[in-house]
């Protein structure tokens, strides 16, 4: 049911003229993809610095709240660009992407990242004044940082794997387990 909805939505996107244009434009698509990957350096680079600070590995003598506050802006700018280019990449190849196991796992992980980030910030704002100058943050915050590092690493790995076609609906048999996860539609004609 939900898979049919996703498929119909993807087909609808795929039928729009801009989607085809972007997909077929070798250079435009590559630029969008490059920007998506390069801003990853900005966004995750800042995020990793914040997380590593909480774990006591990077910049231990700078107050934790100082790092988190200062690096937040470049991180969010990077995230916004990644988000927009990410949507464009999906828009260019909607059917195949929406039926990719990796893409689906990536989306779930992104939700996990968002929840984790929300909890992390709430906990930090509640208590940061008491441990701001400590080399390591308290356990609760450290777990948040470890989850953040872990989830985002998996997001990158899954994102990279979207490019590989091992589990594509087009190239797997209908009795293959991956077809279930990918949400392939029996008898679908477009991939």
């Amino acid at each position, binding site marked *: 049911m939900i898979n049919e909805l996703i498929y119909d939505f993807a087909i609808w996107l795929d039928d729009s003229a801009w989607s085809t244009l972007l997909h077929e434009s070798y250079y435009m698509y590559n630029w969008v993809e*490059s920007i998506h990957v*390069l801003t990853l350096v900005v966004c995750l680079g800042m995020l990793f610095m914040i997380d590593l600070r909480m774990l006591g590995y*990077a*910049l231990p003598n700078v107050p934790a709240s*100082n790092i988190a506050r200062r690096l937040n802006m470049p991180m969010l700018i990077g995230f916004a660009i990644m988000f927009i280019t990410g949507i464009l990449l999906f828009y260019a190849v909607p059917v195949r992407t929406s039926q990719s196991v990796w893409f689906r796992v990536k989306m779930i992980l992104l939700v996990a990242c968002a929840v984790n980030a929300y909890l992390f910030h709430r906990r930090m704002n509640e208590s940061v004044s008491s441990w701001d100058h400590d080399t390591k943050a308290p356990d609760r915050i450290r777990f948040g940082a470890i989850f953040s590092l872990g989830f985002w690493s998996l997001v*990158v790995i899954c994102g990279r794997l979207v490019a*590989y076609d091992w589990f594509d609906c087009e190239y797997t048999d209908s009795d293959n387990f991956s077809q279930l996860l990918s949400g392939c539609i029996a008898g679908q004609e477009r991939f």
Partner: protein
Amino acid sequence: MSALGSTSSTSYGKTITVAVLLFILLTFSFTDLRYQTWLRLYEFFLWLETTPFGVIGKTWGAVFAVVEAIHLLAMALLGGAVIVGDARLLGWLFIDVPAREILDKAHKVFVVGLTVVLITGIFMACGVAGKIYWLPVFWYKMLALATGIFFVFFIRRPLLRHPLEEIHPRVTKLIAISSMLLWFTVAATGRWIGFAGS
């Protein structure tokens, strides 16, 4: 910047080294030497594919893909360290924190990122050696990467070990800007290697 015409040669070792290397590089690039060297390297690239790295990379696509992802993650670490350090030099971030503190710690993160990037990068290069050999963008990336490593360890770090107040502010800004441009080029040309083969 005064005393540009100084003739004391003994104390200008690094400047002379840079100038000589630059001269060699330009001579190499604009003569037949470059082409000849490229031809000779073909055997080496074929050999790379037969190394354990090359065999694994060619045989198991999944391993290659995961290494690619780790390469990206390490690049994020390296990029993060570069941005934080350079932004401090340019006075964009952390101006209330001593520059020494930021620069030294950022450099440690940078070294970790660079190490992982190099190891995963060599692995990937072995897997697709026969392809990248033919791509100009790969060679540009190698040039940028070599320049970057030389720049960081031979010039930037030794210079920044001196108190920042002793360094001309424009020189500080110049190395921050060129460092960001350079590492951007390394990353962007790296991404382009993937497209160029398809």
